[in-house]
């Protein structure tokens, strides 16, 4: 590699890293507790616990809906969700209007067997950490900004891999030159940790970027796929009365054979039309349980109106989520995720140190050269 090419890649690596450093540190530091958010919520008493039941009987969706509306008088139901990892709990989202802002929604957990209110969900200190991590309390603009920082991170990683060659080609793999200066020792650690964690960092970085585009993708789906699904019902008013939720869920299950319900969106919410329920069904394998299939059902009669697979970009979004969160391989994978996060913090921190050390060294060299030019008076 020519010296000029190395210098060019070095400039790319330095500046993509420097511009994104503060935000990447924020993402890594907030991401660390978020890996264990469920355990932390449980420890702090913010995770609702299901009741112990002798029988396997489950409350019907309509019973859960009634309990949710009774728990929040004067408000409307937006969504009800069934988490496959927490089968003892059903979550209900209520808000002032079907299309009201997500930040104004109240999420409550209900016992899956008795439909008894268990408590609020998504409250406590982890909510602050989550907001800092996803949008820095700056809404969609904050999300897109962090997405851009994620892209810079990816460029920094790729340029780092390119620079790994000229910096290490005379060394054996994993050499740390202890006899050299502290700056060289940290350069070796920076190169080693960076290159060893490159695949994980790229995957987590890029899936994070994809996640910041979630709302844009959803808007695109609504404007194209969902719009064409509800086109035959254009001009229909919002339902005067809602169909029984039990019938709606039963019909959705029949329409998507072999699949279970993940969540149901009520008419007028961002995930449905003004006249339809949208039931989002999931499969039962590790992969298909992440890929949802929407079934559109008439809000008044509960009849199936349409059902289509999600487009590729939304499937990519759904698959990118576990790859970003690291919550799909049990506690050992979470611990590994946290360790890799710490290693990434070390790479970012050492990169910053190396840049500062190099600046200091250059400053000292310039000062020396200047001092040599100035005549010393006797």
């Amino acid at each position, binding site marked *: 590699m020519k010296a000029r090419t190395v210098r060019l890649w070095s400039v790319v690596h330095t500046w993509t890293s420097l511009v994104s450093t503060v935000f990447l540190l924020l993402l890594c530091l907030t991401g660390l507790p978020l890996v264990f958010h469920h355990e932390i919520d449980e420890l702090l008493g913010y995770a609702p616990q299901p009741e112990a039941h002798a029988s396997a009987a489950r409350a019907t969706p309509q019973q859960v809906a009634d309990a949710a509306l009774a728990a929040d008088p004067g408000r409307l139901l937006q969504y009800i969700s069934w988490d496959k990892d927490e089968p003892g709990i059903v979550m209900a989202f209520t808000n002032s209007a079907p299309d009201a802002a997500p930040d104004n929604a109240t999420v409550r957990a209900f016992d899956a067997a008795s439909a008894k209110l268990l408590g609020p969900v998504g409250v406590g200190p982890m909510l602050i950490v989550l907001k800092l991590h996803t949008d820095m309390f700056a809404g969609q603009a904050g999300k897109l900004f962090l997405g851009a920082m994620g892209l810079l991170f990816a460029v920094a990683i790729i340029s780092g891999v390119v620079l*790994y*060659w000229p910096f*290490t*080609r005379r060394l*054996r*793999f*994993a050499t*740390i030159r*202890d006899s050299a200066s502290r700056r060289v020792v940290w350069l070796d650690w920076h190169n*080693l*940790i960076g*290159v*060893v*964690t*490159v*695949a*994980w960092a790229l*995957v987590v970085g890029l899936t994070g970027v994809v996640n910041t585009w979630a709302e844009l993708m959803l808007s695109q789906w609504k404007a194209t796929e969902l719009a064409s699904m509800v086109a035959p019902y254009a001009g229909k008013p919002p339902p005067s009365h809602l169909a029984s939720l039990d019938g709606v869920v039963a019909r959705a299950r029949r329409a998507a054979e072999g699949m279970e319900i993940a969540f149901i969106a009520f008419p007028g919410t961002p995930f449905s039309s003004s006249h339809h329920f949208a039931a989002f069904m999931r499969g039962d*394998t*590790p*992969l298909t349980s*992440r890929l949802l299939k929407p079934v559109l059902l008439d809000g008044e009669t509960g009849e199936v109106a349409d059902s289509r697979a999600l487009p590729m970009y939304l499937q990519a979004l759904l*698959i990118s989520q*576990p*790859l970003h969160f690291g919550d*799909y*391989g*049990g506690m*050992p*994978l979470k611990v*590994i*995720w946290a*360790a*890799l996060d710490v*290693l990434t913090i070390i790479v970012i921190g050492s990169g910053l140190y190396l840049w500062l050390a190099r600046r200091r060294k250059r400053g000292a060299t310039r000062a020396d050269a200047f001092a040599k030019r100035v005549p010393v008076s006797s």
Partner: protein
Amino acid sequence: MMHGSSVGSRLWIRVFGAPLLIALATTIGLLAALLWGDGGRYVAWVTVGFPVLVIFGIWLRRSRKAGSS
């Protein structure tokens, strides 16, 4: 020419061989838990955890060396 190219590729493998293998193992592990259920989880624990083990191993070896000298 041939000689130079084979030396170049040997050097390339020496520099990038181990990182490439680790990256490949990590990628397989990341997908394994998503695609292969419980069996895939075990694969993921080993392969995604491999970079952490490599760094920890090198750090441990250096610490021991520093302690003994």
